[in-house]
């Protein structure tokens, strides 16, 4: 039973990690129907920014909490700036182009950002400082669930709730939903659609940056390639849960994380991906729009 609980918690943590990235995918898709493949790279840039800031601050002997906060804020600002710019450069000019064009542009942006960080920073794996300390009160259960696992779980839950509230109840959120439903109509009723899309990218990128900081601290190492691998899994999770749906992204991530964890634990880690993607295929066969996705009605 202990083994089951350990695998369960491990799977939930893994799911929460995917969710932090998947939320950004799903938000952008929900608003403008674009799969932002560069999202994984924004996450990677967030991790690098917090790495650089945290390293500098720790040289000056700042207390850990201050380091985490300042590094987090810096990563959020920097990543958001990247997200905003990527949208302006790579997606906005293609807004009226066929759907395939921005998708290809997104893949190009992803490759560009990876290689940009590779050249501007380093190709090496870097040791990420342990920004989430091992809490003393967690020691009795440390062999089952770590402190960073708990922090990631809580953060994911809080972010999901905040996002839902923002989209359901605030002016920006309403404007976002309006833009998602009908862009032309939203413009006609006086919503600045460009600004709303920018805001979506900024929020998505900020989430990726927070994910970058937490996940890098949990894993303990970063390099320029982490965004791509994590992005693929997060994207899978977003599709599984129903891309465009915020609770769906979290649910899909948890299902994916748990599947992988149990597949490794009870079958073999050789088949981890086989199980994860078989599940995806099965769900898409029976529910093509994902677990919580709305069936898309084609406008004629």
């Amino acid at each position: 039973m202990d083994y089951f609980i350990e695998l369960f918690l491990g799977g939930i943590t893994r799911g929460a990690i995917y969710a932090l990235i998947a939320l950004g995918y799903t938000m952008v898709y929900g608003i403008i129907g674009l799969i932002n493949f560069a999202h994984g790279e924004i996450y990677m840039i967030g991790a690098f920014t917090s790495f650089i800031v945290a390293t500098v601050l720790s040289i000056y002997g700042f207390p850990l909490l201050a380091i985490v906060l300042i590094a987090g804020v810096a990563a959020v600002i920097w990543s958001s700036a990247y997200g905003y710019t990527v949208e302006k450069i790579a997606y906005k000019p293609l807004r009226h182009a066929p759907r395939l064009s921005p998708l290809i542009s997104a893949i190009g942006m992803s490759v560009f950002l990876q290689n940009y960080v590779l050249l501007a920073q380093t190709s090496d794996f870097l040791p990420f400082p342990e920004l989430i300390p091992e809490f003393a009160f967690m020691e009795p259960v440390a062999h089952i669930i770590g402190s960073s696992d708990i922090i990631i779980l809580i953060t994911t839950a809080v972010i999901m709730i905040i996002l839902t509230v923002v989209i359901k109840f605030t002016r920006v959120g309403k404007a976002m939903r309006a833009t998602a439903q009908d862009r032309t109509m939203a413009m006609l009723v006086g919503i600045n659609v460009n600004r709303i899309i920018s805001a979506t990218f900024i929020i998505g990128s900020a989430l990726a940056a927070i994910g970058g900081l937490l996940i890098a601290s949990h894993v303990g190492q970063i390099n320029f390639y982490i965004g791509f691998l994590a992005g693929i899994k997060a994207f899978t999770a977003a599709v599984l849960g129903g891309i465009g749906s915020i609770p769906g992204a979290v649910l899909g991530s948890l299902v994916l994380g748990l599947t992988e964890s149990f597949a490794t634990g009870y079958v073999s880690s050789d088949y981890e991906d086989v199980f994860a993607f078989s599940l995806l295929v099965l769900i898409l066969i029976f529910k093509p729009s994902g677990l919580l996705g709305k069936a898309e009605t084609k406008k004629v």
Partner: protein
Amino acid sequence: MKLMKSKKLIAAAAVMMMAMYAPGAVNAADTIKFGIAGPHSGDLASYGLPSVNAAKLVIDKVNAKGGINGKKIEMLIEDDVCKPEIATNTATKLVSEGVQVVLGHICSGATVAAMPIYRDAKILVMSPSATTDPLTLSGEYPNFFRTIAPNAAQSPTMADFAVNKLGLTKIAVIHDKGDYGKPLAEGAKKAVEDGGKGKVVLFEGITPGAVDYSAIVQKIKQSGAEAVIFGGYHPEASKIVSMMKKKRLKTEFISDDGVKDDTFIKVAGKDAEGVYAVGPEDVTSNKMSIAAKEEHKAAFKSDPGAFFDGAYAATTAMVNAIEKAGSTDLEALKKVLQSEKVETPVGNINFDEKGDAVGVGYSMYQVQGGKFVVVK
């Protein structure tokens, strides 16, 4: 007749003229083209760049003395990012540029992919690091040599160390499903089982690059293993080791020379302490190795990295072979490599008929105080 003669004269003069204009071209053909291939960018660049430095040191010295038999050595450096699909392009490019010998490739998978191209072009290839068995043991690549012992020798070293030296009987064998790690792990599993004393309680492959290895670590714990033997590279090893520490496992971690890299210690930090890794035989007391390190420090203001000694040895051996053979003909080079011993940083070596260096083996290292220390 006269006309004919003058025609001949003109022809002769023309030939002379051409010959006079040719020196540049003759000179270009008169260099020995020395290819260097390996990962020089990407996440495994730290495996490849030290070899470039090693070759530069040896070749600059040779060139400063006037080259080999009057011919200077020209280096052609190509990046394969450690990827098999890119390595074939790298090899094709080097061959089309007319390389006569190649130092490389570095990663086993990339080397296996590139070898058929060099074999068809009859070019001597020597790797300081590609350890996969078939390169030499299959006999398929008569033009391949290496200054590192094959995996086949690494697996028993790990198994023997865990079972006989540490006296552990329950062993978990994990690998990264790659060309390098998987055969190593299979070899270790076989060695543990054949030894009779130990038992393999878990044998599994993991997905490289995953965000989190908690499930496999829990599984190791569940299996009751006393030691983990891991076949793979350092990024996964450091994640697993850190996760094992997080989950409070006391299991010993024993790995291969893909992990015996300073980047592993840098990334895993204090979690790296106590980890065992197999590495090329300890050459810290070898005079030539010490001298080579000094040269590196003088030239590049830093310590050499992984496979530096092996690459220095390979370059030295190839340069020596070209000198003794008086050509870059494959058969002539092979004859020298196999028959004559040469003093290198990895010892006084020659090569067996399969292409493996005679007298080069593995030692076991342990991370102690942030450094790899030889375990006696």
